[in-house]
């Protein structure tokens, strides 16, 4: 997008106003070939985008589809305040740890998992919104407590049941140890995945099918086994089948629309509870203790209302205005003994700042 260069700021901003959708689709990657600050990168058919990352889990059947994964547990929340486990519990979140997401623009996105060695889901008209993980250009921190990217687009295929590929009549799930070997890029620059199941080696090539929202899947073993593809509640048409190689077209078995737009919930009043929630979810807890403990940033204990000295600004009392300024524009004043320019700015609702101030005041 050449309009982003300096000489044409006026034209540039009006173009930006007229074509917000275009920018939102993140054509940066498909044009540039490298990942940019755009948290919604998109590939194209000419330039597929491969992104290995923690992937969203769009309600898959954990027992059959994610059967090789172990189960996380609820655990007592660790209180950095005093080194104890608190009475509150933290639950795990949905996410897939070791999968590879591939995108060809609006035409096709899919996620292939290296732990289950299978295609988990596929969708069109979108890809992954990485803002939870990549943050934004100014902030750099993830945006919430969970940081799994979010799906957006139209999900048309979800893996069902046990592993669908059958070798000589047996599902891969029953053939022995599953091992992901890697992938190679073919002439279309899309991946061909290799894995072994017991004594068998397989190559799996997922591609978009002949019609919109269909998939063409090729499975080959390099041997002479009979291969079939069996997925419950899914229409599968065999295009060609010979010993050691199978090509099928899979029709949609799901229809879920996903969006990653965040609804901003305006808070109605400042509260201590909200302040504590922000302290934990916005990441303040990572650098500021509440009990006097040492960390990257100053402790909140004894902060509110007390005297503060800065590296280059005049010393003053840490009143409410100072507290808010230090969240909105932390570089304005840096406390003596700490490093300059470390904390990113946080743009919050006015009542959110006030809630944080209420929370800081309780740290005596």
């Amino acid at each position, binding site marked *: 997008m050449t309009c982003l260069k300096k000489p044409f700021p006026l034209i540039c901003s009006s173009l930006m106003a007229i074509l917000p959708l275009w920018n939102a689709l993140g054509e940066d990657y498909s044009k540039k070939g490298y*990942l940019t600050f755009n948290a919604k990168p998109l590939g194209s058919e000419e330039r597929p985008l*491969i992104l290995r990352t923690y992937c969203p889990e769009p309600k898959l059947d954990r027992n059959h589809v994610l059967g090789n994964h*172990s189960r996380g547990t609820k655990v007592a*929340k660790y209180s950095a305040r005093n*080194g104890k486990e608190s009475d509150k519990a933290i639950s795990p979140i949905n996410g897939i*740890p070791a999968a590879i997401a591939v995108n060809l623009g609006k035409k096709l996105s899919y996620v292939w998992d290296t732990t289950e060695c299978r295609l988990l889901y596929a969708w069109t008209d979108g890809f992954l919104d990485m803002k939870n993980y990549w943050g934004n250009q100014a*902030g750099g921190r993830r945006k919430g407590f969970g*940081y799994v990217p979010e799906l957006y687009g139209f999900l048309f295929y979800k893996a069902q049941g046990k592993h669908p590929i059958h070798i000589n009549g047996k599902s891969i799930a029953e053939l022995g140890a599953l091992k992901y070997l890697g992938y190679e890029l073919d002439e279309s620059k899309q991946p061909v995945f290799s894995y072994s199941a017991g004594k068998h080696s397989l190559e799996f090539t997922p591609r978009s099918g002949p019609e919109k929202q269909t998939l063409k899947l090729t499975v080959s073993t390099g041997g002479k086994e009979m291969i079939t593809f069996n997925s419950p509640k899914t229409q599968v048409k065999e295009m060609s089948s010979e010993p050691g190689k199978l090509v099928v077209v899979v029709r949609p078995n799901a229809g879920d629309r996903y969006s990653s737009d965040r609804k901003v919930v305006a808070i109605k009043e400042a509260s201590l509870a909200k302040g504590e929630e922000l302290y934990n979810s916005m990441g303040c807890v990572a650098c500021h203790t509440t009990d006097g403990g040492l960390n990257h940033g100053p402790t909140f204990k004894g902060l509110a209302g007390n005297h503060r000295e800065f590296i280059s600004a005049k010393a003053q009392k840490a009143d409410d205005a100072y507290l808010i300024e230090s969240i909105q524009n932390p570089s304005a004043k840096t406390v003596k003994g700490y490093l300059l320019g470390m*904390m990113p700015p946080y743009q919050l609702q006015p009542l959110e700042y006030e809630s944080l101030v209420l929370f800081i005041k309780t740290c005596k």
Partner: protein
Amino acid sequence: MKSISRFLLLFLFFSNFGWAKSYLLEDVPFPKDLPPEIGDLAFDQDGKLYACLRRGDVLVSHPGKDLSKIEWKVFATGLHNGMGMEVIAPGKVVVSQMGELTLIEDLDRDGVADQYLNLCSDFGLSGNYHETNAICPDGEGGYYLALGTASHNGPTFYTSRGEYNHDGRRGRNFSAVKYKGYVLNCKKDGSLKPYANGFRMHNGIAQDESGNLWCGDNQGDWRGGSPIYRVKKDGFHGHPSSLIWDERYDPFGMPLFYPRKLLDELYDKPAMELPRNMMPSPGAPMVITSTEFGPFYGQMLVPDENGRRIVRLMPEEVDSAWQGAAALFYENANLRAGGVRIAPSPDGKSIYYGSTTRGWQRPDEGIQRITYSDKTPFHIQSCSLSIDGFRVKFTEPLAHSQNLAQNIKIRSYRFEYGYRYGSRELDKKNHKILGVQKLDDTDNPTWGISIEKLSPSRIYELSFSVKSVSGLKMISPFVQYTVQRLRRPETDFPARISETKRGLEVSLGGKPFATYDTTSSNKPIIWQVIGPNGQNMLRDWPLKKDTPGEAHDHIHHQGIFFAHEKISGANFWHIDRPNSGSIEQRRLIDTRSGKDRAMIKTLNAWKNKKGTTLAADTRTLTFFGDATSRTIDLEFILHATNGPVQIDPYKDGVFAIRTHPDLRLKPSPKDGVKEVFGQALNSEGNHAKGVWGKRADWVHYFGAVDGKPAGIAFLSHPTNPSKGNQKGWWHARDYGLISANPFAPEKIKGDGGRTIPKGQSLGFRYQIIFHSYDKHEDAKIEERFAEYAKTPAHPTSMMSPHPGYPEDYLSKNSK
């Protein structure tokens, strides 16, 4: 904290003084829309620089003199937060992503990688954001892999990869899946073997030319300062969460709840503990392999993930471990914060410094190049520990060197080790300089600085206010030397340890002394012991059955051993009772060999007959000697790991020796012991049989063994726990058994039993001296005891109580 503002003031004053002329900083440009979040940097043999970026791309460029002309091309893409990369050949790299060690290759040579092979993924992935990995080559076609722990600041997934452990998930930085917090060796054949554990976030690992492995660890819980580790094989580097995956610790329950003293005993201390205002978060160390980057060949540089500086490390080997000095190498307001990786340039004249801060700080991403201008910077070139102080060499001759003693200040402090995040400087001391002298006659000599009270387990901060002969000042006046161990004095009787089938054999001056035997009995024992005159000092039976002239009583009297008749219901004294338990060595923690003394330190599990673990012990045995005496020193600590440890009072116990029959006080002809040559005396003037059941600082049996003068003195340290602070109680018999018993029944004037509450530890110190005299006065036991009483115990860095922090992180947490 005064020292923080001192550092800051000096930074402002010195930052562009002199060093800016020696090391020139340049920025390496990237396209403005590209986030250069550096995971790792490396050059290939053709001079091309690869940059592994955390969002997924690996870029390549050919940096020339004029960096503004640099062009970046995409080599590979789609990698998950890769924080480790090694270049094997042009177009062939290995990257450690979060979930995989991947071999990436450009097979068709079009400049873009087309094959991504899974070299290794035999470790878990919980879904937490903190589980990044770093690598370095192992020199044998494989890699060392550093797996960071997870952080409580982010969640984990319902569906994780690999075995999941709920207890491993608990705590601040946690290890819910294998092998978070470890260094592993991924061998050439793809097999993955654990190498060391106890790490928190060792963000970068490097191997030096001698094969030592180095890594830092970020500031955090269980870290007093910022540690730099020389990774010890099979060692534990301080952060307990990863122990959950180490089978050697299986008997002892949840590692986070181990008694504090136990963790302190298990901890393989770092080579350096840098103060947090010098280096809050070390990135990857880089070994300087170029002679064209300044006068620091062979030393290491480490970037700061939080600050705008690079620190120089000067490690050296002292008494079987690595430690050393650190000094600021480079600091500049224009250097990016978030320095994680440094790669040397192919021509050796520059380093490329890569930074990223996404996830913990305001963005400061990119690569900068620092080039040496051939103008020698002025600082210490090296700093080494001597017997009584330090040896320092500067990079240039000094101006006015006659006043050097006036221009050096030395202070020291220690950090404590515990679950809190960071430690303040404790026990601060200023050290008087006793003397400064030139150690050679050159223009730029090595200087010997001797100070008073040089002690181990402390960090020494040397500060210099000197100028070079050409008027240059040091970029920072401070040099931090972490003294974990002191230099041992020279000796004519070096103590060495060698492995044998039965255990570890200690020799003194080339002659066998004692064997620490972990195979012959149901507990570790010491057998045999050879006195300075060459005789066996212990009974052979029942370990060796055919020695004539020995009585075959008390089959459980086997060499030297530590046991008691009832601990939590199990009998560790007798070996053949229905409730007899066993003491099993779980880990050989440390050995020191080759100097004036040898040391063996082990971890042991006390189990009852069913195999239930009742307690743990850590014991440190020190062996030393000269022409006429040989000593075994024991520091023994019992830890209540699994529950309270109930010690019942019994007269038979606890630290015992069954001597050679010649040192008995009374013969037993019906048992084959016809003639004996022993006399007994204690510190209170009791003698012969009268030493039994009495309190004394020591007991002494002396006379002759095998016709040559010999004696055994058994000393109990005055700090040993007892009721009413009394001297030790002795179960010292006339037929060859001598034992120190701190748990004898009160009705025979002993200290009675006791219960060690869960999470607590109880320690004892004893010494056994084997000598070659036949008269008490000649053995000088009173003098030996006075010296022993003054000798401090092994230094501890155990966290002391803090107001507001639960003393027992464990006893209040039962979930």
